C-alpha cells in the first residue's frame, strides 16, 4: 500500500514538466504584489520628466528654462547645454558615429519628432510635468524626410547584414527559373510602421551610492542595461546593479537600452537622490523603436504542377537618419520552400524617425505576409489548393544552410490544422461563400521561426530544510519564465512545486542574455536543469560517503531523487530526506551551477519551429468591416514545458497577428514627420471582442499521464537513445490458433533486460528477452517461432492456456535500422493522430538475395540482414514509400517491380481494413514474406458536456489510447484546467458544433451536457453527421422527447441515422457510479464499433479474436471505397495463394 502510494506521488513529481500548471506568480500579479520597475518605493525619491521635440528635423536655437527652474518643487532642468557628457555605447565595434548620435542631450540636433530635448527633475511627478510645460524652445526647423515614397530614390544598401545574410543574396539562376515557369506572380506588398505597445511603459529608477548605482528598469535584458550604464558613465560593470523582477510586456522594445535609462542615471547623479523616470505612452511611440514600414516585391515562377522555379523577394524598409536598423523581411524566404533559384535584396531609406528595432518576430511578421500572400496568388492562378501548393514545395532539408532539419512536422501541421479547422469546407472561388451581409473566406499560412539560444548560467541551492532555490538573471515578460523554471527545477530535484523558489531579474545572479527571440525557455531552462543536477550530485556525494546513510556506497547513477528524498533505484525503501543528509553532514546547503554553452560552429541541423495558421474571415460587403470568426493554429515547437503558458504564448502571438493584419498602423504625418496616432485610443490593438475562438494544437506528446502501450514503447526507446543505450524490439508478426496477443503487439527490451510492453500473457517474455539480448549483441534481426500447442506449454511454463503458434520478430535497434525507423514512424503516427502501415520483411528466400546483384554481395548483405527491412506507408500519402525511410527495401525489390506494386496495394488494403496481416510474394525464384502491421489512428471520442461525470470516461478512454476531445457548451467553467488530461478541450455552443468540428466516420460522440436545449441542438447536429456512434446520457423517455423536439425544429432523421443513436448509453453491467458508467459506456463503444454484441464471452462459440482477414469487407465504408477495397482484396487473395 505505502509503496503504491509512493509511486503515485513520484509519478506526479516526475511529470511536472509539461503540465498546465498555473503561473506560480499569478497570485502576486492579480493582487498587486508583483513589483514592476516603477514600483520600487525608495526613500527620498525625485521624479524626472522628459520633454520631447515638437519638430522632426532641425536644430534647437535656444531654450528658455527660467520659468521651469523657478516652478515649485523643481530640482534640476537638464538640456544639451548643461548635460554631463555621456559616453557612446557600441552594440558592435563597426558602428562608428551612429553610437555617438544615440546619446541623448549631447547636441542641439533634432533627428525626429518626439526626441528628448530636455529633462526636468522635481519633488513630485506633477511638479516635473508642470515645469516641463513651462520650458520654451525655439528651433531652426528643416523639412523632414517623412515619406517612404518620396524618399525611395535615396534607398541605399544596408551597411549591416540582414539577419545574418548579405543584403543581396542569390542562389541558382532566377532568370532561368522564371523563363522555365508556366505561371508567374509579381506582387507588391506594403506593411505599415507598427509599435510594440507593451502595457507597462518604459520606466527606470536610478539610485547612486558613491560610484555604484542600482537601476530598477523595465527590461528584457538586465545584463545589457548593466553593460550600457557602465559604458555611459565610464564605471566598471560590477558597480552597476540592475533589478527587474517583472516586465509588463515587451515584444522587443525592452531588449535595447534606450536614452531614458542613462538620463535617469544622470539625473540621479545630478540631484544626489534616487530618481524615477517613467516615459509617457506618447513618448514610447518616438523613442523606443518600432517595426519599420516595408514595401516588398515578391516574384514567383512555377511549373503548372506547382513546383516553384524561382523566388525573388526584394524591397525597402526605413531606418532613421542617424542610425541603422534593417527589418529583415526576406529572412524566412531564404529557407521556407524548396526552390533552386532564389534571390533576395533589401534596401534602406533613411527617415526623420526614431530608429526602428526588433519587434514581435522581426522579419517573419512582415516578410511572411508578403511571401505567403504571393503563394496564395499563385495557388489561385494554378487552380491548386493553397495547402497543396505548399506541400508540393515543402523543403525536406534547409535549402539555404544545406542542412537537415532537427525536426519538422510542417506537413503534419497542415494536415492536423486542416482537420481541426475544417478546411475541406472551403470553396476556392472568391466570394463564393456568403452569410447574410458577410462574405466568408478561409485562409491559411505557414508559420516558421528559428530556434534561438544564448549562453546562460544558473545556480541551484538545496537547503537544509528540504527546499531549493533556482537563480538566474533572466526575465519574465509575462511569458511564464518563473513557472517553467520552477517546473524544471522541481522535476530535476524531485521536489513538489511549493518547495522550489525561483529568483530572477537581478544582475547579482548568474548571467543570462536578452530574453528575446524566443530563447529563454531553452537557454535558461537548460542552465537550471544543469545546475539542479550539479546540486543534486553534491547531495549524493554527501550521502554515499557517509556510513550512517542507507545510501552509503551507492554510486550516483544508482540513486534517484524524489519527494524530497534520495533513494536507491533498485530498492526505493532505502532512502533518506535531503534534510537528513545535509543535517548529518553539517551543511546548511549545497549549491550547483551550470553554464549552458551552445556550439553553433559545428551545427549539424537547421532548427526551426514550424506550424500552420488557419483563419475564417468575414467581410461585410456593404460596410467593409473585417471580422475574424474562427482561428486554428497548429505548431511543432518541440516539448512544451507548460501546456498552459505555451498555449497562451501561441494564442497571444495569434492575437498580435490579428492586430497587425487588421488594425495596427502607425500614421506618420508626411509633411510634419509627427506620429498622428500616438496613443492607444487611436493606435488600435485588438480588444477581447475582436478575438474569436482560437484552437491551438501543439504537436507533441511527451509525458502523457496515461499512455497506451505503443506510446510507452516509443517513449521508452526515445529514452534509451537519449542516454546512449541499446535495445531490441520484439514484434508479434503472426499467430495461428489462439494466443493472448495479436500480430503487432510489441515489446522493447533494453540491454540490461528491462522490458516495456508485452507480446504475450507473460509466457513468452522471458525467452524473448534472452533472444533479444542476443540480437543486441550481434546487432542482427531474426524471427523466432513459439509453438504453444500441446505439451510444449510446459516448456514455456505458461498458465494461460494459449494454444497456438506465435512468430516474433526480434531485431536490434540502432540509428537508422529498420526497427528504429519503424518506431519513429509509429511515433509520428501517434503524435499527429494518423493511421499507418509498416511493411516488414520477415522472411526473405535465398533466391531473391542471389538475384539482388553485385552491390549487395559486395556489402555482404545476407538473408538475416534483410529481415527487418521496412517500408512505411501513411494514411494520406503513400508517397512516403518513395522517400528515404523505405528506400532500402524498395531497392531490394526493384528487380521485381510487379511485387513492388502488389506490396503497395496490400499495404493499402491493410490500412483500410485496419488489420495486420502477412503475405508471401514470389518473384523469379525468390520468396519474400512480409508482415503488414497497422497503426490505427486513435479512436476519436468527443465528449459533449464538462460536468464532473465526464472525468472518469475521459480517463478510461485515454487508457485505451483513444483521442479524447471535451466540448464544453457553456463558457462559464475553467474547463481547460479541470480536464487537463484530455487531448483537447473546446468551448463551443451546441449549435456551432458541426461548424467547429470535422466529424469523420470513426468519430464516437457521447452527449452528457445535462442541458435539454443543448442536447436537442447536439442531436440535430450529430445524427446526420458521419459519426459512427452517438450515445446520449439519460432515460429513454428523455431522448424520445429530445428527438420529438428536434423534429419539431425541422430535423428529419433516417433509420440509419437513428441506428447510430445509443440511448440510454452503455451496456447493462449494473453501473451506478460515474466510474462504472464510464466502464459501461466505453465497453459499449468498443463493442459497437467492432460489431460485437457485448455479451458474455462464455456464451460465444467463435474464437475470441476475430479471424476475419483483410479479405472480408471492413465494416463501415462509403460505397465507392468499399467496392474498390473489395476488388483489391480479391487480388490479394490471388496473389498470396500463388
Amino acid at each position, binding site marked *: 500500500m505505502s509503496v503504491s502510494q509512493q509511486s503515485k506521488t513520484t509519478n506526479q513529481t516526475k511529470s511536472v514538466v509539461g503540465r498546465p500548471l498555473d503561473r506560480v506568480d499569478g497570485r502576486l500579479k492579480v493582487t498587486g504584489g508583483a513589483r514592476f520597475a516603477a514600483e520600487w518605493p525608495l526613500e527620498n525619491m525625485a521624479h524626472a520628466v522628459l520633454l520631447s521635440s515638437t519638430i522632426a528635423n532641425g536644430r534647437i536655437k535656444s531654450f528658455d528654462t527660467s520659468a521651469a527652474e523657478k516652478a515649485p518643487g523643481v530640482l534640476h532642468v537638464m538640456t544639451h547645454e548643461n548635460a554631463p557628457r555621456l559616453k557612446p555605447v557600441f552594440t558592435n565595434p563597426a558602428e562608428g558615429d551612429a553610437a555617438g548620435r544615440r546619446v541623448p542631450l549631447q547636441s542641439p540636433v533634432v533627428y525626429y519628432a518626439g526626441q528628448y530635448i530636455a529633462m526636468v527633475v522635481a519633488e513630485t511627478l506633477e511638479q516635473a*510635468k*508642470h515645469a516641463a*510645460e513651462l520650458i520654451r524652445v525655439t528651433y531652426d526647423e528643416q523639412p523632414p524626410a517623412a515619406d517612404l515614397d518620396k524618399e525611395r530614390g535615396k534607398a541605399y544598401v544596408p551597411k549591416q547584414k540582414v539577419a545574418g545574410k548579405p543584403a543581396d543574396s542569390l542562389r541558382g539562376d532566377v532568370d532561368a527559373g522564371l523563363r522555365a515557369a508556366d505561371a508567374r506572380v509579381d506582387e507588391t506588398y506594403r506593411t505599415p510602421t507598427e509599435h510594440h505597445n507593451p502595457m507597462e511603459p518604459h520606466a527606470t529608477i536610478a539610485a547612486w551610492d558613491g560610484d555604484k548605482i542600482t537601476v530598477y528598469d523595465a527590461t528584457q535584458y538586465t545584463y545589457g542595461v548593466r553593460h550600457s550604464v557602465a559604458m555611459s558613465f565610464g564605471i566598471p560593470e560590477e558597480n552597476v546593479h540592475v533589478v527587474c523582477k517583472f516586465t509588463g510586456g515587451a515584444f522587443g522594445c525592452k531588449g535595447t537600452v534606450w536614452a531614458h535609462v542613462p538620463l535617469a542615471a544622470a539625473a540621479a547623479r545630478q540631484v544626489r537622490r534616487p530618481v524615477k523616470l517613467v516615459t509617457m505612452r506618447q513618448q514610447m511611440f518616438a523613442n523606443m523603436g518600432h517595426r519599420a514600414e516595408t514595401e516588398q516585391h515578391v516574384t514567383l515562377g512555377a511549373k503548372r504542377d506547382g513546383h516553384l522555379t524561382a523566388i525573388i523577394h526584394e524591397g525597402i524598409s526605413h531606418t532613421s537618419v542617424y542610425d541603422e536598423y534593417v527589418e529583415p523581411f526576406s529572412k524566412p524566404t531564404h529557407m521556407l520552400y524548396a526552390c533552386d533559384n532564389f534571390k533576395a535584396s533589401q534596401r534602406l531609406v533613411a527617415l526623420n524617425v526614431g530608429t526602428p528595432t526588433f519587434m514581435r518576430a522581426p522579419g517573419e511578421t512582415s516578410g511572411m505576409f508578403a511571401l505567403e500572400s504571393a503563394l496564395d496568388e499563385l495557388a489561385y492562378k494554378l487552380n491548386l489548393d493553397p495547402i497543396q501548393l505548399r506541400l508540393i514545395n515543402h523543403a525536406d532539408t534547409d535549402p539555404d544552410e544545406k542542412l537537415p532539419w532537427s525536426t519538422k512536422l510542417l506537413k503534419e501541421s497542415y494536415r492536423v490544422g486542416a482537420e481541426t479547422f475544417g478546411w475541406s469546407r472551403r470553396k476556392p472561388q472568391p466570394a463564393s461563400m456568403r452569410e447574410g451581409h458577410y462574405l466568408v473566406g478561409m485562409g491559411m499560412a505557414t508559420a516558421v521561426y528559428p530556434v534561438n539560444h544564448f549562453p546562460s548560467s544558473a545556480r541551484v541551492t538545496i537547503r537544509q530544510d528540504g527546499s531549493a532555490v533556482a537563480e538566474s538573471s533572466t526575465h519574465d515578460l509575462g511569458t511564464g519564465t518563473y513557472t517553467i523554471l520552477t517546473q524544471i527545477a522541481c522535476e530535476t530535484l524531485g521536489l513538489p512545486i511549493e518547495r522550489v523558489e525561483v529568483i530572477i531579474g537581478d544582475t547579482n545572479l548568474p548571467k543570462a542574455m536578452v530574453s528575446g527571440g524566443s530563447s529563454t525557455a531553452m537557454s535558461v531552462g537548460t542552465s537550471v536543469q544543469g545546475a539542479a543536477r550539479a546540486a543534486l550530485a553534491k547531495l549524493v556525494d554527501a550521502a554515499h560517503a557517509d556510513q550512517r546513510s542507507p545510501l552509503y556506497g551507492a554510486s550516483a547513477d544508482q540513486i534517484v531523487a524524489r519527494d524530497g528524498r534520495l533513494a536507491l533505484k533498485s530498492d526505493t525503501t532505502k532512502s533518506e530526506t535531503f534534510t537528513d543528509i545535509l543535517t548529518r553532514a553539517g551543511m546548511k546547503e549545497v549549491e550547483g551551477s551550470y553554464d549552458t554553452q551552445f556550439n553553433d560552429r559545428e551545427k549539424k541541423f537547421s532548427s526551426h519551429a514550424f506550424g500552420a495558421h488557419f483563419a475564417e474571415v468575414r467581410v461585410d460587403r*456593404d*460596410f467593409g468591416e473585417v471580422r475574424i470568426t474562427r482561428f486554428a493554429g497548429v505548431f511543432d515547437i518541440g516539448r512544451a514545458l507548460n501546456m498552459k503558458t505555451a498555449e497562451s504564448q501561441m494564442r497571444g502571438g495569434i492575437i498580435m497577428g490579428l492586430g497587425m493584419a487588421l488594425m495596427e498602423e502607425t500614421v506618420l504625418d508626411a509633411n510634419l514627420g509627427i506620429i498622428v496616432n500616438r496613443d492607444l*485610443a*487611436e493606435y488600435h490593438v485588438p*480588444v477581447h471582442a475582436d478575438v474569436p475562438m482560437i484552437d491551438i494544437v501543439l504537436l507533441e506528446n511527451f509525458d502523457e499521464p496515461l499512455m497506451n502501450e505503443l506510446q510507452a514503447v516509443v517513449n521508452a526507446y526515445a529514452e534509451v537513445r537519449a542516454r546512449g543505450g541499446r535495445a531490441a524490439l520484439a514484434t508479434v508478426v503472426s499467430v495461428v490458433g489462439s494466443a493472448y496477443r495479436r500480430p503487432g503487439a510489441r515489446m522493447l527490451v533494453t540491454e540490461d533486460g528491462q522490458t516495456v510492453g508485452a507480446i504475450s500473457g507473460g509466457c513468452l517474455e522471458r525467452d524473448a528477452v534472452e533472444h533479444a539480448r542476443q540480437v543486441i549483441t550481434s546487432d542482427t534481426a531474426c524471427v523466432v517461432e513459439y509453438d504453444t500447442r500441446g505439451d510444449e506449454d510446459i516448456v514455456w511454463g505458461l498458465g494461460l492456456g494459449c494454444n497456438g503458434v506465435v512468430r516474433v520478430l526480434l531485431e536490434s535497434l540502432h540509428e537508422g535500422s529498420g526497427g528504429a525507423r519503424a518506431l519513429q514512424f509509429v511515433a509520428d503516427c501517434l503524435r499527429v493522430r494518423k493511421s499507418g502501415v509498416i511493411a516488414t520483411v520477415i522472411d526473405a528466400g535465398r533466391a531473391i538475395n542471389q538475384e539482388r546483384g553485385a552491390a549487395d554481395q559486395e556489402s555482404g548483405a545476407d538473408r538475416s540482414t534483410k529481415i527487418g527491412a521496412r517500408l512505411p506507408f501513411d494514411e494520406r500519402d503513400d508517397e512516403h514509400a518513395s522517400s528515404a525511410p523505405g528506400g532500402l527495401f524498395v531497392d531490394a525489390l526493384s528487380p521485381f517491380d510487379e511485387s513492388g506494386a502488389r506490396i503497395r496495394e496490400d499495404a493499402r488494403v491493410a490500412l483500410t481494413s485496419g488489420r495486420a496481416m502477412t503475405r508471401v510474394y514470389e518473384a523469379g525464384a525468390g520468396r519474400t514474406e512480409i508482415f503488414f502491421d497497422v497503426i490505427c489512428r486513435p479512436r476519436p471520442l468527443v465528449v459533449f458536456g464538462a460536468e464532473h461525470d465526464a472525468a472518469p470516461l475521459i480517463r478510461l478512454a485515454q487508457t485505451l489510447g483513444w483521442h479524447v476531445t471535451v466540448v464544453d457548451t457553456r463558457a462559464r467553467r475553467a474547463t481547460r484546467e479541470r480536464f487537463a488530461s484530455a487531448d483537447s478541450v473546446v468551448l463551443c455552443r451546441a449549435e456551432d458544433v458541426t461548424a467547429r468540428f470535422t466529424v469523420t466516420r470513426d468519430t464516437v460522440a457521447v452527449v452528457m451536457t445535462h442541458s435539454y436545449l443543448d442536447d436537442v441542438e447536439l442531436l440535430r447536429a450529430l445524427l446526420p453527421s458521419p459519426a459512427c456512434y452517438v450515445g446520449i446520457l439519460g432515460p429513454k423517455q428523455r431522448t424520445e422527447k429530445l428527438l420529438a423536439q428536434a423534429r419539431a425544429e425541422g430535423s428529419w432523421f433516417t433509420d440509419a441515422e437513428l441506428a447510430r443513436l445509443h440511448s440510454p448509453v452503455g451496456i447493462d453491467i449494473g453501473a451506478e457510479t460515474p466510474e462504472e458508467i464510464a466502464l459501461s459506456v466505453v465497453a459499449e463503444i468498443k463493442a459497437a464499433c467492432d460489431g460485437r454484441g457485448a455479451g458474455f464471452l462464455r456464451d460465444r462459440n467463435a474464437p475470441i479474436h476475430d479471424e476475419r482477414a483483410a479479405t472480408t469487407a471492413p465494416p463501415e465504408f462509403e460505397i465507392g471505397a468499399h467496392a474498390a477495397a473489395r476488388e483489391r482484396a480479391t487480388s490479394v487473395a490471388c496473389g498470396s495463394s500463388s
Partner: protein
Amino acid sequence: MRAYLPAYELVVTRTLEDALALLRDEPGAWRPLAGGTDLMVLLEAGRLEHRKFFSVRQLAELRGIEESDGHVTIGALTTYTEVQRSRVLAREFPMLVRAAGETGGVAIQNRGTLGGNIANASPAADSPPALLAYGAEVELVSSRGSRWVAYADFHTGYKQTLMQPDELIARVRLPRPREGARHFYRKVGTRRAQAISKVCFAGLAELDGGVVREVRIALGSVAPVVLRCRRTEALLRGRRLDAESAGAALEEIAKEIAPIDDVRSTARYRARVARNLLAEFLAPPF
C-alpha cells in the same frame, strides 16, 4: 502640454441651485464634471483651459428615467449602463440602447453619461445620431430658469452648441415612436469596442401602407456636427417607399453629408458606407 493637477479646483455643491449659482457668478470659469470620461482625457493631454470644476454627479435632479404618456424623459446623468438596463428604453428606443452598448467598453459605460456625451459635442459620438432620429428635446437649466430646445438645433458648429455659459443640461425628452416603426442603428468601425466610429447611422421610419409618414435620419462622423439629414428625409416623407424613392434618397444623402479624411478613415469610404447604410435602412421588406 501636460496638466499641473494641483492647480485644479474641484467643488461639490449640495444642490442644483448652488451649482447654477457658480455658473452665474463666474460665467465661463467653471466646468461641470459628470463621469469625467471626456474631461480627464483632455486634462491629461493638457488641452483644458479650465482650472475650476464642479461635480454634477450628486445632483438628484439630473438623474432617473421617467415615462409619461407621450414621452420618456432621461436625466442627463444617466450612464450607458443605466440606459442598457432600462426596460422602457429597450422596448421603445432600441437604437439608444444599442448605441449605449457600443460606446467605449464596460468601464466607460459604467461611468460615462448621456449629458456628457451631448455637451462634449463630438461629431463622432455614438448616442447623438440615435437621439436625433428619435426627435429628442433637451432641457437646459440655469439660475434664470429652464428651457426645452430641439436637439436637432443644439449643435451649431464643430464642438459648438447653443448652450449658454450659465446653463446645464438637465434632461433629454424622447417622443414615444409608433409601434411597428423601423429602427435602424449601426456603428461602423475598425474594432469591436473602444473605437471611435468611422461612420454611425441611426434611422427611424413610420410607414402607413407603404407610404412614409415620418422618417428621421442621422449620421455621425460625416460632418462637423452629428448630422440630421433633413433634405433626405424631406424627399422621402409622404412618398411611397420603393426602389425609385430609395434611389433618390441615396443620391440626396451623398450631397447632404460632408465627410473628411482623417486618421480613422477616408472621406471616400465614409461617403460610400453612409450610402450603403441608408440603402440598408430603406431596403425591403417593409
